[in-house]
């Protein structure tokens, strides 16, 4: 494994934080949407190095640091490496192994033509991370496709990149969607809780954006202004298996096909990565 330094820790909540990691030596190439394996010695394991993969939230054009948004899950047992990271200080050493993962943006269709379909990214919790990377990457390279990022969280203070993604949407409004076409929406699953009292946006699980409502089209179709079909939209999903299953259920009618079950001609409309 290679050496690096934790350069920045921003606690968003007691159990949610943004970490930046600066590798020693030349900054490696990777693709937006990939994950990096990090490792640290863990006291309770006799200082043995414990490794774990985390999705990268920064974009490949950023050669200053890798950024991660990490949740410290503690039930039923706290993760060993994540606990070590939440106990770490800025300046501490950390190890890393090259980026990997297949949840990356498709630029071409199986027939070799450019994939110009709308990109819809659905992230549950810290499953947003690869889409923050993708959004910033597509912005950097001046991609003209329509991009919609949907984020689901239990509480408003878990909307980790709300400001950055809102700024990307505001830029889209300012510059015009012919130059940069980006939208960001979030759903809060526990709107009745006191902490969420200010929330007036979408409620429920993030996949509810895809659910048709009585007498109305889905919130996603309302946002796009047209029916979502396999020919005009490509879905990327990251989160708990429940988020993946829920999204696939709402897409329904077997029209949409996942990468794992692609058609004979190699085509598909859904790419996903689950954790937990």
């Amino acid at each position, binding site marked *: 494994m290679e050496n690096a330094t934790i350069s920045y820790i921003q606690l968003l909540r007691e159990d949610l934080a943004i970490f930046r990691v600066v590798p020693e030596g030349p900054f490696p190439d990777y693709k937006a949407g990939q994950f990096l394996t990090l490792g640290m010695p863990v006291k309770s394991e006799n200082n043995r190095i414990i490794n774990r993969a985390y999705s990268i939230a920064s974009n490949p054009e950023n050669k200053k640091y890798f950024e991660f948004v990490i949740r410290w899950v*503690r*039930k*039923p047992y*706290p993760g060993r490496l994540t606990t070590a990271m939440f106990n770490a200080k800025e300046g501490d050493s950390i190890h890393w192994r090259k980026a990997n993962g297949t949840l990356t943006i498709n630029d071409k269709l199986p027939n070799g033509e450019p994939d110009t379909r709308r990109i819809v990214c659905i992230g549950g919790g810290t499953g947003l991370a690869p889409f923050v990377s993708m959004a910033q990457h597509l912005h950097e390279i001046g991609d003209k496709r329509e991009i919609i990022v949907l984020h689901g969280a239990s509480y408003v203070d878990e909307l980790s990149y709300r400001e950055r993604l809102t700024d990307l949407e505001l830029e889209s409004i300012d510059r015009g969607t012919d130059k940069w076409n980006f939208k960001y929406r979030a759903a809060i699953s*526990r709107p*009745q*809780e*006191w902490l969420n009292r200010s929330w007036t946006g979408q409620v429920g699980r993030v996949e509810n954006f895809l659910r048709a409502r009585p007498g109305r089209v889905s919130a996603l179709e309302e946002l796009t202004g047209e029916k979502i079909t396999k020919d005009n939209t490509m879905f990327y999903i990251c989160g708990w298996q429940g988020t993946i299953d829920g999204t696939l259920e709402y897409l329904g009618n077997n029209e949409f096909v996942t990468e794992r079950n692609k058609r004979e001609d190699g085509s598909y409309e859904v790419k996903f990565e689950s954790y937990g």
Partner: protein
Amino acid sequence: MGMAEEIVTTQTYEKLCSDVLYSHESVRFVGLVNNKSDLLHSVQKQELDPLLDEDEIKISINYSLERWRKAQNLSFRLGNEKLTLTEYDNVTLISIPYDGKLLLISTQPTVHYHDVIQSIISAIPPWEK
């Protein structure tokens, strides 16, 4: 949950809250909340003026749930939380985890809370399987 089951569950919550309210003369208020902050049922002694208004009750419930959730983060070492007691000048607040929910109880201040807790606990039916 079917309607019949829902009615039985509601009756169970009502009885639980009522039994705890009248388990000791110093108990002022009893509420049962789930882990999503829904107040499933609550009762209070009518002759007493409430100390908190509606919004402040929501804040108080949020604080109790937050504290309970955080306490569970160490349960893999310390075991499950059984009871928490907070003494204020004007009231004593007791919270007791019950079947995945949280029983919130307030009592008059400066009581001998050991006796109160014994009375409250004996009014709560066992639920652990």
